């Protein structure tokens, strides 16, 4: 299992390991483990060799190394990578020209010294919480190969969970970082909407699209997040804010007021998910329950806006190439494109209302805790989830706890917790992550809470 990003960068900066040696270890892990999991859709080892050599040359010259010097990473295949076709998990994109330049945050990772080793599998067009891709195959869960990795950033989560990489990048429209992070047992950060630039990424729902990192440690997550921050006028949704570094101080401030989300978030959490929340709350000293009353309607609003924007975005190619879309995507996209404007307008009004309710909640609390998925990873091909006696379609239902939060753009760090609950020994060995949610632009607090859980031994990766 590859080490945490902070340790790797420190070893390279001290000269106890070379970037080339780290890359060799990483490549060996990928070659050994990826065939069983199907995380990668492309490997960029030639580029990685060049980038690692450049880091080792900097060290040899006695120059200061950047913060992620020599740290290998990979990206969901909706990020532009110079020389690769940006697939976004779709056959309809396979014939496109290769990207002429890296996505903005890939370029920022390179500037920070990170070494790009490849592109990762995802749900087609990011539409769904599984990575059972009709064109590029199923990404399997590193902890149980009969189960899925979750999605849509399934390759990104599974590659970290399997110990192949310390950092990957993904995107989150309705839970696509948080759900696979939860199912694969890794850390994930969905920043505030607009915090990180999406330039050079393949869009899905502009109103909700976020990008962010996965990692095998909180420090690694924070280092990647810091490297990617900063204004970008080419993304109209990107807030023109200065960098607010989080990695230098990951201590939870004394007196942080932490609430536990009940209501919708408790109802749609099964016993394992509830146990994860209980463990996290106890470690953080949280005892007070609270409620976001508009959670259900915020999820519904997100569903409507997602359908409408996704359907409109893909209409030209649905008209021309319907058969080239996967069967699980195409009819949903067409149906979304038929949504009346009045539904969308009402959904956007609801969204504003839910945001205001959340802001009232943050008068009383600094941080809120909820499960990141309603249950452990479902089996590959499982059509429905049974949550506290209620059945819900797996593909949409896995996001039932994440969608209300991304609808209103709040920052969330997902931390991997191992509840030890379930009907079988296999289920009892699987994680359910917790969402650590704060008010806008307070990513540092979410990360500090995750770090507290990590130090307490509650949030951790499982060695494979």
């Amino acid at each position, binding site marked *: 299992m590859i080490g945490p990003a902070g340790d790797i960068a420190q070893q390279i900066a001290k000269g106890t390991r070379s970037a080339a040696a780290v890359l060799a270890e990483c490549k060996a892990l990928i070659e050994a483990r990826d065939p069983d999991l199907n995380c990668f859709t492309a490997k960029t080892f030639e580029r990685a060799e060049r980038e690692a050599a450049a880091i080792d040359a900097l060290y040899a010259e006695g120059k200061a190394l950047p913060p992620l010097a020599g740290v290998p990473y990979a990206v969901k295949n909706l990020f532009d990578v110079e020389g690769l076709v940006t697939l976004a998990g779709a056959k309809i994109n396979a014939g496109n020209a290769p990207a002429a330049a890296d996505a903005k945050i890939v370029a920022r990772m390179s500037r920070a010294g990170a070494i790009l080793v490849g592109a990762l599998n995802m749900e087609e067009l990011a539409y769904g919480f599984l990575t059972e891709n009709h064109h590029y195959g199923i990404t399997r869960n590193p902890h149980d190969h009969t189960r899925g990795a979750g999605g849509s950033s399934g390759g990104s989560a599974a590659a970290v969970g399997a110990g192949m990489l310390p950092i990957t990048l993904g995107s989150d429209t309705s839970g696509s970082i948080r759900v696979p992070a939860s199912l694969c047992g890794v850390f994930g950060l969905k920043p505030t909407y607009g915090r990180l630039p999406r330039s050079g990424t393949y869009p899905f729902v502009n109103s909700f699209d976020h990008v962010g990192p996965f990692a095998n440690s909180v420090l690694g997550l924070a280092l990647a997040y810091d490297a990617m921050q900063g204004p970008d006028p080419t993304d109209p949704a990107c807030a023109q804010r200065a960098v607010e570094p989080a990695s230098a101080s990951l201590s939870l401030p004394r007196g942080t007021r932490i609430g536990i989300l009940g209501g919708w978030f408790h109802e749609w959490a099964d016993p394992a998910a509830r146990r994860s929340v209980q463990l996290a709350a106890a470690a953080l000293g949280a005892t007070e329950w609270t409620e976001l009353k508009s959670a259900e309607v915020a999820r519904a*609003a997100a569903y409507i806006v997602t359908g409408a924007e996704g359907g409109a975005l893909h209409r030209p190619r649905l*008209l021309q190439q319907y058969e080239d879309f996967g069967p699980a995507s195409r009819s949903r996209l*067409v*149906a*979304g494109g*038929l*949504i009346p404007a009045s539904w969308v*307008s*009402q959904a956007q009004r609801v969204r504003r209302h839910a*945001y205001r309710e959340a802001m009232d909640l943050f008068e009383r609390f600094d941080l809120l805790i909820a499960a990141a998925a309603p249950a452990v990873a479902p089996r590959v091909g499982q059509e429905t989830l049974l949550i506290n006696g209620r059945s819900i379609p797996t593909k949409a239902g896995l996001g039932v706890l994440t969608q209300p939060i991304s609808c209103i753009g709040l920052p969330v760090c997902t931390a991997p917790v191992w509840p030890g609950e379930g009907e079988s020994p296999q289920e009892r060995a699987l994680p359910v992550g917790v969402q650590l949610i704060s008010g806008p632009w307070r990513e540092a607090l979410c990360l500090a809470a995750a770090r507290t859980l990590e130090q307490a031994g509650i949030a951790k990766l499982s060695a494979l």
Partner: protein
Amino acid sequence: MTETHDNPLEAYVRAALALQGYTFDDVEIAEIVMQFARLETIARTVFEWPLPFASEPAPVFRP
């Protein structure tokens, strides 16, 4: 397929598909109707939520 005059949702889907230039066979239309019915059920939640008359939509265009 039911007669569309008995099923306003299917009638809407067929009309909206035609308006947008889609042509599908009845099997494909049935699948799209099923997906749209799910959306319609969820949309009801959105419309049933009491909102102040003056509440504004979330996206604000800033030139």
